[in-house]
């Protein structure tokens, strides 16, 4: 019973954090990817660098910067504290933010190249037929870039499930509250609970396997 709980709680927490993060990643990611692929604006190169940065930075660096931003004196942290009365660090919401920041580049990179690869003539055809840019994006560009966008979602989800370093720094490893699967595995290993570690590792591998395999299947459609 105890083992079941020590598996189920981190599992559900991880799925919750990864799902919520992926929802936001999808919404914001598609928007940013569309802008990067279709628009020319000043400082575009800077935007491109900034959204790619978390992909190459060590998670501890990303985590540290997040701690600064989310802390009681940080920009976001202070606002959050004013509204809710308590800090955001060491909560599962902080883990969502960490997962979001780390997995957003996956979405943007994949979706930008998919949107950029849509035939320009096809989009222009929609414009000449009287459809606005928004309608063209909604009915033509995004459906045609669907494969890449779905792949981006799945990769982001997988990345969020596996997030460790930044989460550890902003949310800690609090049993039952912020201890996600990767953190629990580390904890179990540290405390010599090999049985639990093995089980968690197996489940995590299975989840990742299913997500990646599902992308392949979705891509075939």
């Amino acid at each position, binding site marked *: 019973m105890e083992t079941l709980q020590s598996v189920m709680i981190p599992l559900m927490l991880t799925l919750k954090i990864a799902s919520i993060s992926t929802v936001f990643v999808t919404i914001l990611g598609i928007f940013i990817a569309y802008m990067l692929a279709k628009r020319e604006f000043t400082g575009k190169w800077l935007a491109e660098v900034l959204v790619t940065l978390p992909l190459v930075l060590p998670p501890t660096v990303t985590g540290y910067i997040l701690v600064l931003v989310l802390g009681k004196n940080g920009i976001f942290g202070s606002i959050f504290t004013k509204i809710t009365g308590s800090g955001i660090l060491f909560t599962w919401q902080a883990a969502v933010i960490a997962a979001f920041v780390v997995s957003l580049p996956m979405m943007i990179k994949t979706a930008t190249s998919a949107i950029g690869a849509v035939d320009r003539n096809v989009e*222009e055809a929609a*414009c000449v037929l009287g459809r606005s840019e928004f309608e063209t994006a909604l*009915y033509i560009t995004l459906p045609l870039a669907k494969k890449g966008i779905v792949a981006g979602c799945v990769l982001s989800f997988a990345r969020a499930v596996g997030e460790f370093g930044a989460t550890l720094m902003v949310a800690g490893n609090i049993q039952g509250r912020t201890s996600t699967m990767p953190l629990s595995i580390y904890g179990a290993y540290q405390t010599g609970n090999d049985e639990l570690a093995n089980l968690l590792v197996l489940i995590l591998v299975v989840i990742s396997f299913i997500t990646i395999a599902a992308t392949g299947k979705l891509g075939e459609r």
Partner: protein
Amino acid sequence: MTVEVDIEKEFYRRKHIKKKGEKPSFSMHCSFDADSDFVVLFGCSGSGKTTALRCIAGLEKPDEGTIKINNTLYFDSKKKVNLTPQKRKIGYMFQENALFPHMNVRQNIEFGLKGMYSTEKKEKVSAMLGLVEIEELEFAYPNELSGGQKQKVALARALAPNPEVLLLDEPFSALDTVVRLKLRKELRMIQKKLGIPVIFITHDPVEAFTMADRMVVFDNGRVQQRGSPEEVFYHPKDRYVAELVGFSNLFDDAVVEGHGQGAECTFLWSLGTEITAPYIERMAGDRVSWGIRPENIELVDKRYIHTIQKEGRKNLFYGVIMNVVNKGTSRIMSLILKESDDVLKVEVANHAFGSLKLETGDECMVRLRTSDMIVF
């Protein structure tokens, strides 16, 4: 319905960013009008035809000028008018169909019919499918269609919103000859039926000649000649247009010697001899160019050479056949002329070539008819 276009656009190496004093890498200036007829923009690739068409559709913005369709100002650089493509009532057909691959034929055609009731839409789609005769393909997806069918759908889609003008950018260039000929005929009939101006781009001289009511010839971003296909093909204005419409024999070093009585012809010194050419208003001693189509050069049968020489006919040339290329229905011979070593290309129908029993290395005589020659 009328179309009036007079636009200019410059391109710089670094997209549209203009450095001080930098000369444009390409500049397009074109003006023409259409009037419920079939206008063909003709020229080789890279001559600015597509840019002109995209400017009319609003997909690109000219630097200067005006575009007016049916008295509606679509673009005017001075009055700062520039309607978006959405607001222009234009049908556009791209070189590669540009169908929406994730929608079936019906959905493709319906896409331009925003704001109509569904019964109305249904009627319109059926009418369009009937117009291009593809009723049976209503629910097919683009990847299930042949090249010709795709272009028919693209045409139906472009015409569905009742455009004021139809623009076509080399729509048949990727199709095989049989389908192309059929679609040309059908497009011509549809244009007559709808009575809207059609602006059609092509680099194929035959396509231009057979389709056009009027031709606009482009070179390097400039309009070189405007006129009926007959005018352009039989009386090209300059060397460039002549070459484009098939005058592959062009000579630039001719000198005017004098004129015939009553200005009926002009005598030129060229190819090492005197040539009787059509009249041109130039002084004796002026340098001019002249040309003739290979298919208009008459090959004289060996048996009649003496008779013709006795009659003292003009523009006769002796040459040696350097090589012969079989085009399938005719042969192109390259003749080295005896008097001047210039090369004359002569096109002979295959049956005639066979009966004359000519071979490479043979000597033969050709005659250039004054009426077939052009001088400028």
